Every structure is written in structure tokens, then in C-alpha cells.
């Protein structure tokens, strides 16, 4: 097992946002003041009991936390191996883990007094979660979404519009999540005085990777307690999908000091890592600089970011949160890949065996957990982060099945 002794996981990032060689703040000068402002506000409220109380209350009464830890007994029997538990982030308000973070950042926005929020989105879950908190606080909300994602996530686009958000399809570049993030950055540079940028994942310039992680850590804290309550001990393995990596870091982080707990971050293998058509920078990328931070990226020999592929829009991103890059290098987390086909099989399997329809993103984690469970002992415990529900994906699945809905 890959574990590291004597690493102080609470000491990263450093004051300038570095996780080892990763992270940092690589942005144009116009944004530096906004990031400084955000950092100082965050430092102030992080340990403010009033802020924490408001955050916890919103998570309890608005999001519906704690989310259950569910023993997937039939799936476990069918797979034949370790016991598989699902952390049910799909049961959160708006249907995914994303809302944990948007609740936190909306509170920060409230502290800054800014009246307009912007967000980027891939699968649309973060866009929906942002539009939701904006509606609740009466803030103007603009969501940038790659034009290709607008097509394949039509249901979420309409949800955002119903919530009062403006959805801007981004036609530049590969027309997916990375381009949506470029466009959101451009909006922020232009409207920096009155706009709060709600980044949806643990990437971007410091302090975003840190504050998004902190907001998402509620997943791992609950899971740790729930697992002990239900089984009397800690799990042997954690499994979560990794696009930008916010649900994974949220589950992993509270367990990092627990050396007996193995961790697996599952990237999108697309058509197969060996084909180059995937979104798995930790499996097949190299460190570089994009979207304000240094991290593993998918790029060509000229340093141009290359187009990624995944059946799941939420994983279709050429970078990854900088903390994951660091956790890979120090060997604390194993980063693996699951192909489109394997994820689709897991989607169907969990739906039919447990009556739980996972998001295509989360299906990657389920697929890897099934593989892993077969290699482990029947007494072993795996906790899978079921980061979102699959309702948003039914049009994609239907299309693959050749069915017009």
C-alpha cells in the first residue's frame, strides 16, 4: 500500500497556495487584487464560529445533510468481494456534491457584498448548484458552459434557466469545461468589482483549491464517522471519480492521516488511456500551468492544451486540482482510469441491482470499486463516493442505446 509517513496534510497548501510544486496563483494582474481580497475574507471567516454555524445549518436544513452512508448489499453480493458502501451525495439538494461548495462560496459572496455571481460548469451540476444558491440569496447569476456540454446536458441547462440564471454557451476552443472556465475568467476580469466567481472544483488560482476542499471535506468527515458507527472501524479503501477532483478531495482529505486507508482516484479513461482520447491527466499527462495553477495537464509537445474525451461531461477536463497532483507524486493516492464502456456498464448495473441511478461521473468510481472489490477480502470495506445522481444523463444514455426520448 502506498502511504506516506510524517506528512502533515493540514500544512498544505502553504500561504501562497502551493501543494509541493503544484497550485499557486498564475493569473493576469487584474485578478490579483480580487484573489487577495477573497483570501483575506476566507482567512477571516474560516475560523469564525458564526460563519461555520451558518454553513453547517445551511448544509443541514437546505442541502439535507448528513447524506447517508449506504451498504450496497446486493451489489456487494453480485460483485463477490469486499463490502461496498456508497456515500450518497446524490441525495443532496440539487442532486450532487457540488452544492456543498456553492453554499460555502455563496456565504463568502454575501460577506463580500457582491451582487453578481458567475460560474463555469461541465455537466451542469455546479451550474445548477450555483444558480440554486443565487436564487436563494437573490443574486444575479451567469453560468458559462461549453456549447458541446449545453447540448449533451440539456436538462441541466433548462434547470438553470428555471432558477433564473443566464446560461452562456461557449463556442471557443473545444467547447467544453476548460473553455467555459476561460470565459468565466474573462468575465471576472471585466466585472471584478461587483462579481464573485464561484469556481466549482478544487482547481484554479489560490485560494480556490483550498477553500473548495474545505467546503467539500464535510463528505469525508461524515463518511469517517458513519463508517465507524456502522462497522466499528475505518474503511480499507476509498474510491471517488476525479475530473477537477472536488468530490474526491472532499472524501479523501479527512482520511489522509489514516495510513490503513487506501485511496483510489478514478479518472475518465474515455476510449482507453492507450488511445490518447481520454481525460486522465494524472495517468497520462505532465505538469504545466493552466487556469491559474500548476498541475498535471493534457498537452502536446508545444505546451498547447489538447482536447479531452469522456462520455461524462463533468470529467471532460484536461487538468486536475493541484492537491491531487501532489498526492499522486507523494504516493498517498492511487490514480487509475475507467473507460467510457466500463462506466456505462457500472451505470446500468447499479441502476438495476440497487435501484440507484448514478451520474456518469460517479459511475466511473462505481466501476473501479467493482474491480477493486473482487481483488479484496469479503471482510474488507470500500467506501465509494456516489457524487451525483444520473437523471441528468438519461438523454446521453438513451442516445448511446439508440433510443429517442
Amino acid at each position, binding site marked *: 500500500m502506498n502511504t506516506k509517513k510524517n506528512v502533515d496534510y493540514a500544512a498544505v497548501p502553504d500561504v501562497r497556495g502551493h501543494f509541493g510544486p503544484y497550485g499557486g496563483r498564475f493569473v493576469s494582474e487584474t485578478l490579483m487584487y480580487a484573489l487577495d481580497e477573497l483570501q483575506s475574507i476566507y482567512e477571516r471567516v474560516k475560523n469564525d464560529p458564526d460563519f461555520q454555524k451558518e454553513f453547517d445549518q445551511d448544509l443541514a436544513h437546505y442541502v439535507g445533510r448528513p447524506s447517508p452512508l449506504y451498504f450496497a448489499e446486493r451489489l456487494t453480493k453480485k460483485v463477490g468481494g469486499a463490502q461496498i458502501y456508497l456515500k450518497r451525495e446524490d441525495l443532496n439538494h440539487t442532486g450532487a456534491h457540488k452544492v456543498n461548495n456553492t453554499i460555502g462560496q455563496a456565504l463568502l459572496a454575501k460577506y463580500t457584498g457582491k451582487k453578481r455571481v458567475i460560474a463555469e460548469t461541465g455537466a451542469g451540476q455546479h451550474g445548477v448548484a450555483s444558480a440554486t444558491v443565487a436564487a436563494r440569496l437573490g443574486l444575479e447569476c451567469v453560468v458559462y458552459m461549453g456549447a458541446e456540454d449545453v447540448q449533451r446536458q440539456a436538462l441541466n441547462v433548462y434547470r438553470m434557466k428555471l432558477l433564473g440564471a443566464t446560461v452562456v454557451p461557449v463556442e471557443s476552443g473545444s467547447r467544453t469545461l476548460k473553455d467555459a472556465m476561460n470565459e468565466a*475568467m474573462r468575465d471576472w*476580469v471585466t466585472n471584478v*468589482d461587483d462579481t464573485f466567481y464561484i469556481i466549482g472544483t478544487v482547481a484554479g488560482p489560490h485560494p480556490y483549491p483550498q477553500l473548495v476542499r474545505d467546503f467539500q471535506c464535510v463528505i469525508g468527515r461524515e463518511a469517517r464517522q458513519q463508517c465507524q458507527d456502522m462497522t466499528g472501524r475505518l474503511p480499507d479503501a476509498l474510491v471517488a471519480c476525479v475530473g477537477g477532483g472536488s468530490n474526491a478531495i472532499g472524501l479523501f482529505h479527512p482520511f489522509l492521516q489514516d495510513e490503513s486507508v487506501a485511496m483510489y482516484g478514478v479518472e475518465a479513461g474515455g476510449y482507453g488511456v492507450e488511445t490518447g482520447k481520454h481525460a486522465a491527466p494524472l495517468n497520462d499527462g505532465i505538469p504545466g500551468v493552466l487556469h491559474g495553477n500548476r498541475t498535471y495537464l493534457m498537452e502536446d509537445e508545444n505546451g498547447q492544451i489538447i482536447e479531452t474525451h469522456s462520455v461524462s461531461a463533468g470529467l471532460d477536463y484536461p487538468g486536475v486540482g493541484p492537491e491531487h497532483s501532489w498526492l499522486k507524486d507523494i504516493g498517498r493516492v492511487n490514480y487509475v482510469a475507467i473507460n467510457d464502456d466500463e462506466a456505462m456498464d457500472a451505470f446500468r448495473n447499479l441502476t438495476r441491482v440497487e435501484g440507484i441511478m448514478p451520474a456518469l461521473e460517479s459511475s466511473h468510481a462505481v466501476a473501479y470499486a467493482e474491480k477493486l472489490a473482487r481483488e479484496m477480502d469479503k471482510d474488507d470495506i470500500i467506501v465509494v463516493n456516489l457524487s451525483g445522481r444520473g437523471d441528468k444523463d438519461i438523454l446521453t444514455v438513451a442516445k448511446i442505446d439508440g433510443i429517442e426520448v
Partner: protein
Amino acid sequence: MSQENRISTRLAALKAANKKALVSYIVVGDPRPEVSLAAMHTLVENGTDIIELGIPFSDPMAEGPVIQKGHERALSHNVSLRSTLATVVEFRKQDNETPIVVMGYTNPIERMGYSDFAKTASAAGVDGVITVDLPPEELENFNAELKANNMHNIFLLAPTSSNARIEKICAVASGFLYYVSLKGVTGAGHLDVDSVKEKVAEIRQHSALPVLVGFGIKNAETARAVGELAEGVVVGSVLVSAMGEHADATTEVICEQIKNHVASIRSGLDSIE
């Protein structure tokens, strides 16, 4: 700096002649690789003092739609950092006087390696580098590599730059300071001359370097209005826009387009008393 640097030499000469500097930006390889060399000479022939070459990047976050499209046109011909430097080599065969600044994003430079980049760029005849997303805090050995190869690191300052940041940036900047006249991406919005005036005065308290102002310079009038406040102006989107509109035209037609814009902006600057 021990050796002569074309940027410093040119800016000093302009100052002595009481003239304003005109920096003209195009994206290398836009709209086609064979246009760039002719376009660069056209810029110089019509009053450009410093050529600024955009290094095409897949994710040009600080650029507005006009310059983004320029990057996309160049990338469709596989023009990248190494081909940018090769273009400078070609240009220098005919013009060894005009200063050249390359402007781009960190990732292609980091991929090439700071040391390899600095040596190759300097040997090609590059005089200065603007890296949009590499602030003083993240420089590591980049400045040292540029200095060792007689190139300036040119930094952007923004309307949002605090006094403390201006000081921090001035401590590592050389060549000139590039003041971004408005909050926004390239090619955006409306110039507020009064706020530019105020900020330039603030910058001058921290540095004796020439201040050039960019973003929002579109024609002779805006060039004149802003030129009065600083040592010169940077013009980009209006040129890239003209090149994009005539992307399918011959090199001659494209050069004719940018000639008209540059000559007009030059006349605006030269009308300053």
C-alpha cells in the same frame, strides 16, 4: 544590463526626440504563417517602434474574442512557440533594429523550459517577454534566465493593482511597464482617460521605467488621448480584427489593411505637442 537591448535603446531615442512609442501587436501565424513576416515589416514601415508578437496558445484567458480568434487561426496552422521564434530569426535577416517583444502564456514557455526558451529567444533576436499569467510571486528562475540572455521581463499593471503590488512588480520589471488601461480582456470596453492619468502618476512614484498604455487604443484619437499621459501606446485588437476580416485575402491586401490602421495611429501620436 551589460549589453545594449533594442527596447531600451529605442525608448531612450524616442524620449530624446520627444516622440511617443507605438507598440503594435499581431499574433504570429495569423491568419496564415506566410503573412507574418510581411506584416511585421509593414508595421515597421508605417511607424511602429516596437513589435509585439503574440505566441499562439490554446487557452488565451486574457484575450477578448478578436484576439482569441487570431490565436485559433494561427493554431489551425500549427504555429506555436518554436515557430514564433523561427519567424523572429527570419525577420532579423532584414531588420536588426526594431525591438521585438513576445507575449504569451506560461505553459508553452514552461514546456520548452525557461533556460532553453531564454537562450533560443535571445539568439533569435527577441528583446523582451510578456508572460500574462506569470506574476512576480511565481517567477522562480525565469527573470534570471531572461537577464542572463539580455532580455527584459515586461509586466502588466492593472487598474486594480494596489500600491504594494505596483511596488512588487516594479522591483522585478525591466524595459518598460505595460499599463492595462481598463478592467477587462483585450479589445474590450471604453477608455477612461482620467483614471489612466491618475494611475500612471501612481506608477511613476515607484519606477523610472517608461510606461506604455494598452487595451482600448483603437484609432488616432484614442492613441492621442492616451499617448499624452505616457511614453506611448500598445495597439492590438484593431490590427488582429482587420487581419481576421481579410483572412482569406492575399498577403498584400492584409498588409494594406494594417498599414492604414498603424499609419493613422502613428499620426495621432505624432500630433501630440
